[in-house]
């Protein structure tokens, strides 16, 4: 998977991970992929719901040592 941009949102509390993700996605072209790192557990459900409502695709996510990583394809 080609990743076009990485956003480090670790240590940020809700709503900042989504606020930053939204800004970062806006700077990408359709079809490009953003990788997001966050330590906010609540971001999991919110990011997938946000991606859906915005027409983006949450390709996958994984968790390691309390850091969540998300890959979102701009729609």
């Amino acid at each position, binding site marked *: 998977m080609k990743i076009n941009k990485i956003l480090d949102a670790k240590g940020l509390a*809700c709503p900042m991970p*989504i606020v930053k993700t939204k800004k970062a996605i806006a700077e990408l072209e359709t079809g490009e992929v953003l990788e997001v790192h966050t330590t906010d557990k609540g971001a999991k*459900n919110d990011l997938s*719901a*946000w991606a859906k*409502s915005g027409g983006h695709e949450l390709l996958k996510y994984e968790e390691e040592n309390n850091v969540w990583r998300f890959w979102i394809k701009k729609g």
Partner: protein
Amino acid sequence: MMTSKEVTQKVFTKESLFILDVRNAGDFADWKIEGHNFDYLNIPYFELLDGVEGIVEKLPTDKEILVVCAKEGSSIMVAEMLSDAGLNVFYLKGGMKAWSEHLEPVKVGDLKDGGEIYQFVRIGKGCLSYLVVSNGEAALIDATRMIETYMEFAESIGVKIKHVFDTHLHADHISGSRAIAEITGATYWLPPKDAAEVIYTYQPLTDGKGVTIGNAAIHIHALYSPGHTIGSTSFIVDKKFLLSGDILFIDSIGRPDLAGLAQDWVGDLRESLYKRYRQLSEELVVLPAHFMIIDELNNDGSISEKLGTLFAENHGLNIKDDNEFRKLVTENLPPQPNAYQEIREINMGKINPDMDKQREMEIGPNRCAVR
């Protein structure tokens, strides 16, 4: 800003409130702040990042608006935007996390020879715990993990906690009983049949066991009433109150499946509800360990009802046919409580996750009943 305590008072007094819940739709559908006269709008905060113009017209101008999110960060952001748009709004301090942890003490009755019994209403999650007080001493039953609340309350009314009980090994919330016993030096009682796997010491709470609180001989009498778990035990306090644990609720009955043995325990549940409880005085005031719906609250916010009334009105006590009863309590059960297996392991003393993890496990409604 509005605190959980203030929102609780609005629930108790049936005030109206408009709740703008900015969590995602799934979390809102699963669990929200309930009130008799509360109205709701659920719009996730991430749909409001570009502005609130789209929702202003959906919000009332003649009642208070409370913005709610999981922890509080997003609700502060949305409340500020709405405030800039000219609306009078509050955010919930601490969000649903604080709501889940709020305990409201309500006095539910007097004891014969002086003394009182208090119910601690965990309004956001539906858990109920009890403090029986007499002559400077107290017994605490089914305490939640918010142990400071009980200890501060006991201190404020000048009583010392001498005995701590769990009616059963809880699966829906983390017990604070053992921690309080360790701090106060109180004796911790647990039904031995629920304690087969626990790794700490406790006093076995068996049928007929009694303790006395204070000089006034307030008797707490244990009544073995299995069914929700194999050890589930009820208490009769002062021959007046029946603490029914998770066996009998106001508008529902306990579910037998949370320790994995629904089919085995359905017979016990039936016997406890239809035989053992039937032998008790109908004048006993039932004080359960949970409420499920806000309609179960009395006007003062307490949750209680005479046993005789429940025999007449609680559907779960009025099923004549054994098979029908078995079906009710083993089929089509509501979803199990969040993380209930891990919660049981914490209550057995097997694991001890940090406070954040404990909070997260307890998120959501309790779901201990079948209706």
